[in-house]
């Protein structure tokens, strides 16, 4: 690590420590002495780091009914499934419609209409149809990821360089070989570019689904909505913190996958050397 990077890291740690210390301190002193409940910053709303840590430890212990681990796992499972199913169906649909002009023109108004519907508005309906388990959350994540991937792949399948197809044909490719060696790789390049936004949106979809999803298959979204019911800011902070960690880890993982899959691209080539 260079000196410059060390310095940046040091400052980042200093800021983190200052924020946590300030948070802890300001939520611990009274604004007007002797008046009960009047804090400089009221921990009722944002809790305090020490209280959050305590709740975190408590929720991690095996003697709670639904531990933080189970909830995190549930959220991750729904997200990953919604993501995977969304990617594969979105890719297939994008590829087919991208190469079949008439089909694309027939479906266009439906796709545009469905995509302009705010997906959050579908949560109650999806829950009604698919129940309170994981499935509803997966469907919700899918309904968002599908369109992101679909539009990207569609664009990619349409903009395949005609001269690449001609070259393949001159080299003796059959139509099937053109599909597998030119059209699919070209379209995939666009699909891969949609991976990072897709995973973030899948997580959003799942959490919103969990808001009304109830306890069975309840993930971190369930914990948030429960904490709202009991006015428990500490639990809410625990859920938010865990979601943040999950979001970061997933995004970083996908970035790695993307860099590997698109390693032939100039931007990844330069980074390597």
């Amino acid at each position: 690590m260079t000196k410059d990077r060390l310095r940046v890291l040091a400052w980042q740690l200093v800021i983190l420590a200052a924020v946590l210390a300030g948070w802890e301190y300001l939520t611990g002193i009274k604004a007007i002495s002797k008046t009960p409940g009047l804090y400089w910053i009221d921990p009722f709303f944002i809790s305090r780091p020490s209280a959050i840590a305590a709740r975190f430890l408590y929720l991690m212990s095996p003697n709670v009914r639904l531990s933080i681990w189970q909830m995190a796992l549930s959220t991750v499972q729904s997200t990953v499934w919604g993501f995977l199913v969304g990617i594969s169906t979105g890719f297939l649909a994008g590829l087919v419609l991208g190469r079949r002009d008439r089909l694309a023109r027939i479906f266009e108004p439906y796709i545009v209409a469905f995509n302009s519907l705010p997906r959050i508005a579908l949560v109650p309906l999806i829950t009604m149809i698919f129940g309170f388990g994981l499935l509803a959350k997966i469907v919700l994540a899918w309904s968002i990821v599908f369109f992101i991937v679909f539009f990207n792949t569609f664009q990619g399948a349409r903009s395949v360089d005609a001269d690449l197809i001609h070259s393949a044909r001159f080299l003796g490719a059959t139509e099937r070989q053109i599909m597998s060696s030119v059209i699919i790789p070209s379209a995939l390049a666009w699909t891969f570019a949609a991976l990072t936004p897709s995973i973030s949106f899948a997580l959003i979809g799942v959490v919103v689904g969990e808001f009304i999803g109830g306890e069975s298959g309840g993930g971190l979204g369930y914990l948030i909505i429960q904490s709202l019911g009991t006015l428990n800011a500490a639990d809410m902070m625990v859920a938010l913190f865990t979601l943040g960690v999950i979001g970061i880890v997933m995004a970083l993982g996908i970035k790695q996958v993307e860099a590997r899959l698109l390693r032939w691209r100039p931007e990844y080539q330069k980074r390597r050397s």
Partner: protein
Amino acid sequence: MTPRVRISIRGLSKTFGSGPREVPAVSPVSFDVHEGEFVAIVGPSGCGKSTILNMVGGLITPSGGEIVVDEQRVEGAPPSQVGYVFQKDTVFPWRTVERNIALGLEYRNVPPVERAARVRAAIALAGLQGFEDAFPATLSGGMRQRVALMRSLVVDPEILLMDEPFGALDTHTKLDLHAELLSLWQARRQTVIFVTHDLSEAITLADRIVVMTRRPGRVKLLYDVELPRPRDVIRLRESDEYLREYQELWHALGAEFRAQP
């Protein structure tokens, strides 16, 4: 005995668009290309020389006339004995150098062992050793065009159509590739049609030059290049014969650049 005719272009014409927006690109053009002959088509830009090549390759349908390749009329699909090198970079960016050159062999289901051997030989011929696993994004324009050329040649086409393949390269790289192309051609003697707007390139490479008029292109002159082979691309340029041929062609072509439509 004259060698047999491999490509016969008869009264070929092309008009783009229709009605009042009709643009004639090629007026009826006729010439033959013989077995093992290297023919260059030169002319001012927009004279339809690339259009002719695209029609020979079956990429564009002619408006009139016909093209016969080995007694077969070209219709729609490219004839299987024809290779094509584009001016534009058509190397597949997601494939390494090695896998780009192997493309045609994969399409033709050449067994892996033979495929690897032929690709290796092609890489050696093109001086691309050490770059087998490189992606095109890391290569220079000249190297990428070298890969494209070897990709076409590795499947051993008997007829090679080249559409300004070195048009985007700097002079030095261009000369390098001329020398390479000539030595490869000398070994195999493919029948070649090479489209260019660069007169010296045409003289360096070709046996015969088809000089086109401005749009809509007609054949203005069929010119035989009398320079002996094998040719040295650098020395050639200093010889008196080269200069004489260049002047003669320059006169013919210069009139076309100056003529107002």
